[in-house]
């Protein structure tokens, strides 16, 4: 179907009905007409059906009052639907921003554990992967939320505060967080400054290395410089880095950072489940690196850490990126399962408006567009990194 037959040099053209060039285009146009006709017909049906059931056919519903509560946000019932979707979007982002780094780190550790020489570590890795990836993620969310979350967590009146730094209750899980009273703006500026200083120091050490040949240790020096500037920022911005422990005040958790139960268990379940897939990707990528690379690292007496850090992982990383990006897309899409545990992100927002005589078709269009925005941006970033890595090496 792909390549054409070699053209026969005959005196006259073949008749139209046997001319490949004509048939190709005629066939394509015929199929295209059918597809466009079908889409047009479906669109016509939607418009007719919406009109006959008295539903609007446009996107005016986005300006209407949302009329439902979003936990943790005051006055959300008076939001417009657009603003509610915005709040839901932020909630989805909260899951992704924590979920993607966490599942990557955990997945890398489990993946390496599966390759360990130590039988106990290896067995642990294997059990983890086989347990988590063969059971649906929704079931893990249910187990987390309904069994561990609602079933076993102490009530807030029980005042379970381990180390006096955490609050564990069925109203939410409080962890120590940065002092909210400090001037955040000043501190963020110092963080930016610290990054710049770290980059400069690292570049300077690289120059020293090139000139004198002494080890650059760019990472070490940069980290020290970064921390030094950060500490200055800490004092300049009014103890910005000091942690504020959560305390129980009546029936609420004050101070620190409070995660509500659905969020905590949804994110935990997504991370644990996705990490099992990431672990398999990491393992496959490491195993795909030629054995000679590890042996060469051994031959120049690198430690286990150095072997992974400088020889194996950089190469494995290149193999990992496309499937890893796929897992990031999956965790993003799976965040929609929050709808099962009443964590209000975009899918749950849709679930709430669709009951309010809002046209489901248009609502779904908005919902899908929002998810596509996530998917396309993650794909774009992954493609960019993939290209960069491929270019630098070949």
């Amino acid at each position, binding site marked *: *179907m792909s390549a054409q037959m070699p053209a026969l040099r005959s005196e006259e053209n073949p008749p139209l009905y046997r001319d490949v060039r004509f048939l190709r285009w005629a066939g394509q146009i015929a199929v295209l007409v059918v597809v466009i006709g079908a889409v047009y017909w479906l669109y016509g049906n939607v418009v007719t059906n919406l009109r006959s059931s008295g539903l609007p056919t446009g996107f005016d519903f986005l300006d209407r009052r949302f009329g439902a509560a979003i936990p943790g946000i005051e006055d959300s019932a008076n939001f417009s639907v657009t603003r509610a979707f915005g709040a839901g979007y932020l909630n989805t982002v909260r899951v992704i921003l924590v979920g993607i780094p966490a599942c990557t780190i955990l997945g890398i550790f489990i993946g390496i554990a599966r390759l360990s020489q130590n039988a106990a570590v290896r*067995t642990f890795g294997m059990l983890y992967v086989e347990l988590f990836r063969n059971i649906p993620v*929704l079931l893990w969310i249910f187990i987390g939320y309904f069994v561990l979350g609602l079933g076993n967590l102490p009530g807030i009146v029980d005042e379970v505060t381990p180390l006096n730094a955490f609050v564990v209750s069925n109203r939410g899980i409080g962890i120590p967080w940065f002092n909210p009273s400090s001037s955040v703006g000043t501190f963020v500026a110092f963080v930016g400054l610290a990054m710049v200083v770290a980059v400069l120091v690292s570049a300077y050490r690289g120059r020293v290395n090139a000139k004198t040949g002494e080890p650059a240790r760019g990472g070490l020096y940069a980290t020290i410089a970064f921390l030094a500037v950060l500490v200055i920022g800490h004092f300049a911005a009014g103890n910005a880095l000091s942690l504020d422990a959560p305390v129980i005040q009546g029936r609420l958790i004050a101070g620190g950072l409070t995660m509500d139960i659905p969020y905590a268990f949804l994110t935990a379940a997504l991370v644990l489940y996705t990490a099992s897939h990431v672990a398999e990707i990491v393992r496959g990528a*490491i195993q795909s690196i030629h054995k000679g690379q590890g042996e060469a690292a*051994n031959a120049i007496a690198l430690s286990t850490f150095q072997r992974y850090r400088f020889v194996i992982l950089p190469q494995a990383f290149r193999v990992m990126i496309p499937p890893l990006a796929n897992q990031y897309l999956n965790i993003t899409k799976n965040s*929609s*399962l929050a709808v099962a545990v009443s964590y209000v992100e975009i899918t749950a927002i849709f679930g709430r408006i669709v009951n309010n005589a809002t046209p*489901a078709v248009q609502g779904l269009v908005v919902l899908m567009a929002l*998810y596509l925005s996530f998917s396309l941006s993650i794909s774009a970033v992954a493609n960019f990194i993939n290209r960069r890595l491929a270019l630098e090496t070949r």
Partner: protein
Amino acid sequence: MTQTTEPVSRPTGPEDQPVAPDAPSLDIHSARDLLRGNLFKDPKNSILTLVFGTILVYAVYKTFGFVFLNEKVAQDGTVRSGWEVVRQPLVTYMVGTRFSATGIPFSYLWAGIYAVSLALGLTAGAGARKVRDAPAVPLRTTLGILLPPVLGAAAILSMTQTITPTLLTIAIAVPFVIGRELATRLPMGVVQRTALISGALVLLSFLLITGFEPSNVNQFGGLLLTVTVAFTAIVLCFPIGVVLALTRRSNFPLLRPIAVIYIELIRGVPLITLLFMGEFAIRFFFPPGAAVPGSIPRAIIMCTLFSAAYVAEIVRGGLQSVPTGQVEAGQAVGLSPLTITRKIVLPQALRTSIPALVGQSISLLKDTTLLVIIGLFDVLGVTRAILANTAFVNQNFTPETYAFVGFLFWIICFSMSRASQRLETRLGVGTR
């Protein structure tokens, strides 16, 4: 613990260094070797062993207690096993709450299973006959594939009240063996049409379990619903996926964008939005006054459309792995493009894709749990009905219920992925 502690500074030869990127290749001859060789080789390993060994032992201890010493005390003081929540409503887990309303006898369901078993037997026998130089299957591999599903089935059957289900389950092997033997004895002309015969058997199986009235599917629930939705969607999405993949790989400038847009659009959104679409929006797409199918057929349609995009990408990968020389060879002998695709490219591409297709089937099976969100009573959904039952409500039977459902999924998915790994070696994917 650290009997073999050695000075860390001892110069280590290369043979002492673990070769990380390789699979663990220690040749373990005895428990003594195991202990000295890797568990307690040096202080670092000893600590690792202690930490992870403790985790493992604790997990095994907890699991043992949960499975075998699980007793619940009711408010009136009666003690009963926590697994009563599985034993009593076992049939509900399997077929849901409304299945009896259809009046389909259970014998039809078993007949449906046997038909599928016969189809599998025929396919396996025909496959063995076509691949003449296939190496003999070692007993260990066969056991490795058979053991998980057999043990899983045994665990589930231990919950039954009578012996009948056990006997009927064991009998599943009979049609399989018959089918395999038939495939080795029938004339080659028939064997070459195994796919057709198996397809007919699967269709017969579907008709049997729906009692020859497909609309009965609306009364399905439990594992029956989960498997029906996943299986039907996989079967239906396959041709769509192949057509999409071929279109995406083709040089039809007018049609390729359609395939690309469809695939990327579907892969960019979560399944739950598509299921919502089936639940809330699909009725608007039907012409006014047309009969809209029930919730479950709509869910099957959406799962099919969803899965087709993923299958298309898998098949596209398979198509890309077929060397261009194959197409050129076909052109050299004067085959038409259609024949080249059908007889040369697709068979090779599909063979390469089989493991990934099995993976997609597993993933779709797991995804069918989302049906609970649109209010259907799949195997996860029936737990709500069971836990709301007066016999179990508010007595903290949730862990056992979810553990059982998780066990069901685990056994099915684990067995399938093991079998697919085996298939992968058998087909020699990635070794040619």
